[in-house]
């Protein structure tokens, strides 16, 4: 498991890695990746959380069909997802002309990267969110209602705090998946430096030009992933510290700062 990661750092000296950080290809890719990832994850949380809550707490006709639909991007090959997005939002796509009428042109823009990342990464968050909301005892929700709290207050005071650890874990997975997104992005958004070229796309573009730059960017991605993961775990430990017995995603109190 560790060998490829060790190999990346063995090949690059830390000094060279830092030097590469000022390479415009790297900085541009970093900026594009960061911007699109953050917006995509915000979109996923904003739309995915209510969807997951609804699916976890209500049973209705077509319930499992909706769940299948939500999970679909997970099993779709990313390249196929990209083609699908192009067929939907492209100039000659299903919604293309409608969007054109509003002056919106999506494919091969930075927004297209965001859409591709959100589309591909969303199931990881939503699946975990559904499971986390389902794990909250339904009696707690109805107890909250009998105590005078409406549905919204019940959600924010009871369901959300109890599902929080799971939601954060889901977000970490979805973020990691989104950061590594390649197939759907290159099909739907292309690989234009400064605009749509994310870190994975830049790695591929530089691959036959400058292997050292490739390695440096890979190193950066590995570091981002590790920092992200550790950050989430520290955050979880800190926020649930008084609530000793929740350990789905954190291990022990060894992390302290």
């Amino acid at each position, binding site marked *: 498991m560790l060998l490829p990661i060790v190999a990346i750092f063995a090949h690059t000296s830390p000094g060279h890695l830092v030097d590469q950080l000022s390479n415009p290809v790297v900085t541009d890719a970093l900026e594009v990746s960061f911007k699109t990832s953050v917006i995509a994850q915000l979109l996923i949380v904003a739309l995915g959380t209510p969807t997951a809550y609804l699916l976890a707490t209500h049973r209705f006709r077509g319930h499992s069909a909706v769940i299948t639909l939500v999970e679909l991007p997970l099993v779709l090959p990313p390249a196929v997802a990209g083609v699908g997005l192009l067929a939907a939002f492209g100039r000659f796509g299903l919604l293309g002309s409608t969007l054109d009428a509003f002056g919106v042109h999506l494919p091969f823009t930075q927004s297209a990267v965001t859409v591709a990342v959100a589309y591909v990464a969303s199931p990881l968050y939503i699946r975990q969110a559904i499971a986390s909301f389902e794990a909250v*005892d339904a009696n*707690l929700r*109805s*107890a909250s209602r009998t105590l005078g709290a409406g549905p919204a207050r019940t959600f924010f005071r009871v369901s959300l705090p109890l599902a929080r650890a799971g939601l954060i874990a889901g977000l970490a997975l979805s973020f990691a998946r989104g950061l590594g997104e390649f197939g759907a992005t290159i099909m739907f958004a292309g690989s234009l430096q400064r605009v749509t070229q994310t870190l994975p796309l830049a790695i591929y573009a530089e691959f036959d030009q400058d292997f050292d730059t490739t390695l440096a960017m890979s190193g950066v991605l590995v570091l981002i992933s590790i920092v992200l993961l550790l950050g989430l775990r520290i955050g979880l430990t800190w926020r649930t510290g008084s*609530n000793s*017995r929740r350990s789905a995603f954190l291990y022990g109190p060894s992390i302290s700062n």
Partner: protein
Amino acid sequence: MRPAAGRIACGEDVWFDGAAGRFAPPERRRVGLVYQEYALFPHMTVRQNVEYSRERRADEYLARLGISHLADARPDRLSGGERQRVALARALARDPKVLLLDEPLSALDAHTKVDVRGELQELLPSLEIPVLIVTHDFEDAATLAGSVGVLVEGKLRQLASPADLVSRPSDPFVASFTGANLIHGHATVDGDKTHVRTSDGATITFPELLHGDVVLAVYPWEITISTAPPPDSSALNSIHGTVKTISELGHRARVTLGSITAEITAESLRALDLRVGRPAYASFKATGTRLVSSSPVSEA
């Protein structure tokens, strides 16, 4: 769950009216509900649980239920009895018009159960609001309630005080729920009394005149057990049989003889030297026998 039709109201407040299309969501009904497993919010302290309903009188209720010292504890650190008191305080802090307890004692072990039942017995009458308790245990109902409704498959069989349920059970189910032995038999009038031939083959006397198929009820504590045949008397019924089981609990013992269960003292159990498989007589007063079902009834 929303009823299909009907009307539910508490005093002036209409909670549901099928005809008028009214339905009050739970947060708008002033009901204090204590769940079987208490449903305390695990991510909040005891105080936060009690304060949840926005009533700012948490301290008063914590003190009243004797749990002020637990105010900052999390529910997962509490014992079953303590959890129930927190659930009660939380429900009462909502200032309800009626309090519902769903099987309040079933989640507790036998030892705690007796203590908590005692606490509830003290607390409930002091609340000045109606309290509705759901239970499968007649002893719990009789201890805690002034009036007991026996529900079978959604239908109310009898609504009466615990004492009245015991002395005048309306049907065999109520009699057996309150702990009575049921004796099935066929009644025939013989002179100025009724003889009932039981399904076990014994003949017993019933003080009122009737005939036809009957079900009679006798409570375990009205039955005495003897190894020698009791004096032959029309005022005393006796059934002969072999001892099937003996279970002793403290200074009381329950002995089953055929289909009859008797409750005797542990002392008399020793004195009689009762053993499983040995013959014995169960006797009870003819006047202590209650008729709970008869068909067809015909007064002679």
